[in-house]
């Protein structure tokens, strides 16, 4: 054989030496469940839609469609959701949580601006489903059921759809054009909506409408009353009624000095509303301390900025015209407020009670199989009540009460209804391992302090119902999306491919499985796993 000058031996490649046989552990690409996804009551795949959104431009629509798979209200939720996803977000342990909610809002607004629509891709089933109540839960179920090919009719007592999104949440937090646009998109799927009709006898309604199944989502409309000794001339209203009137376009008269009794979000909304209706003084009276207040911190802060006052550790014992008697409380060891006997007077022209709501379940009287416990309807995993084919969700079932929870219930129930109608059971939810913060290699993430949404200037906040929290601009929304660390899922950074000392990782070019481990050569050193920013690689012992 001819060899070049000074070469006498042939060389072979070291690829003949399969060093994979050294391995005692092998790397595996994982798809773990990020805490944002785990925390989202609507069941959003937050990590994945952020991943889409990070590309910007055309990818926004992809991101939006991914949200729409589970939640038909991105623009609404991007405003009013209490965003437990952000509370769970791993980035909170690095600097500050990703502004998931503000990106969601950005995408929702883009969709409205660009007129993106959804379609029904299933053939018609010919089956009829009744939805009682057009709140977030009922609308969510109707949306999913329509997309599954069923004929859906919503019967709603109020004059307009939206439930507490319209008759509870004030406009300064949720502009009605946004709500209307997202509801209209659902109705455009062919959902029938019958307004101004109260269902009083479920059996009769189902029989007359020849419905094959039903989803009940009547919410909790009845404001809880306190037994307060009150003079006849005193002006006491409940917060849900007040906000309901407002939702109908009225401007209720409350007077110059307004007291609000309660510590939840409804109390804060009522207090901020009172300010906007012209009250000079708007005072929240609450029996416990600020730390124990169920209302969300940001809302309390915003209320304070608008001039709402809070009196903690106070209970109302007497209501007279123009004044309230307040008793100071103190917390016992268990954190329960106990009376001290010390009282004082608080001048007030009206008192707004925000002590919680109950569900009006009279329309279920005599409906066999349905079980009511502590004022709410018992349901199983699929959201089915004790009556086969009748499902329920939202505020009327035992769970946390929020629009997002209601949307999640609506979707789960829709899948349950669909399965029940077809005589199937629903698929088990996936039980991927949690994507822990400790599994990330945060060195690799660029330093990026959070971008916060700007607020409307204070003067306009206490006199108008203009939206307080503003949108992120396009650049900041993209930036916020890119702060996501893609916990537990590959973000295609090529770092594993780069750091393997044995070239044992293959780049496939296929976005679904971008990398493969070449087990002929992988020695199992674990560098790829240790240096994966996203914690998307796990080392698993070999059977040896």
């Amino acid at each position: 054989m001819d060899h070049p000058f000074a070469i006498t031996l042939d060389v072979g490649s070291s690829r003949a030496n399969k060093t994979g046989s050294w391995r005692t552990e092998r790397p595996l690409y994982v798809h773990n469940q990020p805490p944002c996804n785990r925390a989202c009551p609507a069941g959003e795949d937050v990590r994945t839609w952020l991943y889409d959104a990070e590309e910007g431009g055309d990818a926004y629509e992809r991101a939006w469609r991914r949200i729409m798979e589970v939640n038909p209200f991105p623009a609404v939720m991007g405003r009013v959701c209490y965003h437990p996803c952000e509370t769970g977000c791993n980035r909170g342990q690095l600097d500050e949580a990703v502004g998931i909610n503000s990106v969601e809002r950005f995408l929702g607004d883009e969709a409205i601006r660009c007129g993106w629509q959804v379609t029904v891709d299933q053939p018609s089933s010919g089956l009829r489903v009744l939805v009682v109540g057009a709140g977030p839960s009922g609308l969510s179920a109707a949306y999913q059921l329509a997309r599954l090919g069923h004929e859906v009719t919503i019967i709603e007592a109020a004059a307009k759809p939206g439930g507490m999104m319209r008759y509870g949440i004030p406009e300064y937090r949720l502009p009605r054009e946004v709500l209307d646009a997202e509801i209209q998109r659902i109705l455009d799927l062919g959902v029938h909506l019958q307004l101004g009709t109260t269902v009083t006898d479920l059996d009769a309604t189902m029989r007359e409408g020849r419905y094959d199944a039903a989803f009940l989502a009547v919410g909790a409309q009845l404001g809880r009353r306190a037994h307060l000794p009150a003079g006849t001339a005193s002006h006491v209203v409940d917060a849900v009624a007040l906000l309901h009137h407002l939702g109908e376009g009225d401007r209720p008269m409350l007077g110059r000095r307004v007291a609000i009794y309660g510590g939840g979000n409804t109390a804060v909304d009522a207090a901020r509303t009172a300010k906007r209706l012209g009250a000079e003084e708007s005072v929240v009276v609450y029996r416990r301390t600020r730390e124990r207040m169920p209302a969300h911190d940001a809302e309390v802060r915003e209320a304070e900025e608008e001039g709402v006052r809070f009196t903690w550790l106070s209970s109302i014992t007497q209501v007279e015209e123009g004044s309230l008697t307040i008793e100071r409380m103190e917390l016992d060891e268990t954190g329960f407020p106990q009376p001290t006997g010390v009282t004082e007077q608080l001048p007030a022209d009206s008192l707004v009670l925000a002590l919680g709501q109950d569900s009006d379940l009279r329309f279920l009287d005599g409906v066999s199989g349905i079980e009511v416990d502590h004022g709410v309807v018992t349901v199983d995993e699929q959201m089915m009540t004790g009556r086969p084919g009748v499902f329920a969700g939202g505020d009327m079932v035992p769970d946390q009460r929020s629009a997002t929870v209601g949307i999640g219930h609506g979707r789960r129930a829709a899948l349950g209804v669909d399965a029940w109608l077809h005589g199937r059971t629903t698929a088990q939810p996936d039980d991927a391992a949690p994507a822990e913060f400790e599994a990330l290699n945060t060195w690799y993430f660029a330093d990026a302090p959070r971008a916060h949404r700007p607020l409307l200037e204070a003067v306009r906040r206490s006199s108008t119902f203009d939206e307080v929290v503003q949108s992120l601009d396009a650049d900041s929304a993209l930036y916020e999306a890119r702060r996501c660390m893609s916990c537990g899922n590959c973000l295609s950074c090529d770092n594993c491919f780069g750091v393997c000392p044995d070239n044992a990782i293959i780049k496939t070019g296929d976005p679904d499985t971008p990398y493969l481990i070449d087990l002929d050569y992988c020695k199992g050193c674990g560098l790829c796993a240790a240096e994966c920013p996203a914690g998307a690689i796990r080392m698993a012992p070999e059977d040896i």
Partner: protein
Amino acid sequence: MTDLKLYQVGTFAAGNRLVDLELRSVQAHADRANSITSGHRACQGCGEALGARYVLDAAMRAAGGDVVVANATGCLEVFSTPYPESSWQVAWLHSLFGNAPAVAAGMAAGLRALGRETRVVGQGGDGGTVDIGFGCLSGMFERNDDVLYVCYDNQGYMNTGVQRSGATPPAARTANTAPLGPEPGNAFGQGKSAPLIAMAHEIPYVATATVADLRDLERKVEKAMSIRGARYLHVLVPCPLGWAAASSDTIRLARLATESGIFPVFEAEYGEVTAATPIRRPVPVDEYLRLQGRFAHLFGKHARPDLVARIQAAADRNIVRFGLVEAEPRTGS
């Protein structure tokens, strides 16, 4: 979109799907040269194998693939070329333990005589470079031969069983610096900094780098390849075997070495330091030392906080001397 600068993993990871292909590292490219390919017999997690691929792939890209390499004896040579196998996908020549710089200089002279544009890289371990090959290296610098010489510093003679070299750090246990007596491990105050000595030759370019900062390493190789004359690159390459560390910690250790100030990353031209990589997330030297069995005798039952303090003092001196905290740290965007 305007000039949005943040790209998630920014410039810290090898690649980034959000930026143009050209802005990603050489290592992120599926068609990289893979100068040292699979099947080599380096230990699991070998920093030297990784460092050599990082350097040579970048050099290959910078020189359009027209590169020859002279390699000193050491792990890098032994694990890559047991006859009849070779891992090298570059033109590669094995020289002796002590003469790689001279062989590389000769190759450069020969190629020049032939009128060839081929670029020459010489490379070796820290033993081959700072100890036995040092005379040849100094001569190569002095003559300003047109060679990029790269030292892969794993801080010991690893190939022959982890003996001490002039680059072994104080207090480290090696086969011949036992962790016994009042000053266990390698002695303080001995050893040398080859990059500083290289600078004293006032050659066009001297730089240090580590396997923990790929972008910085590649940029330095590219810069070195754009210069003619003698250039020296000193790359810290942790050795799981010799350092008694987990194979998955190789890059982490290199990162801690720089973030603690123990290994200053800088570059110099004609004898003057021109840039230093600022510390981004400062850590005490403990965090670096504790991951390595070769420093185990400084901790535990017969802990030697006094010696750890001396190591910390040396790191602090580097921080002041090279201005490692003065400059704005990188944000990755």
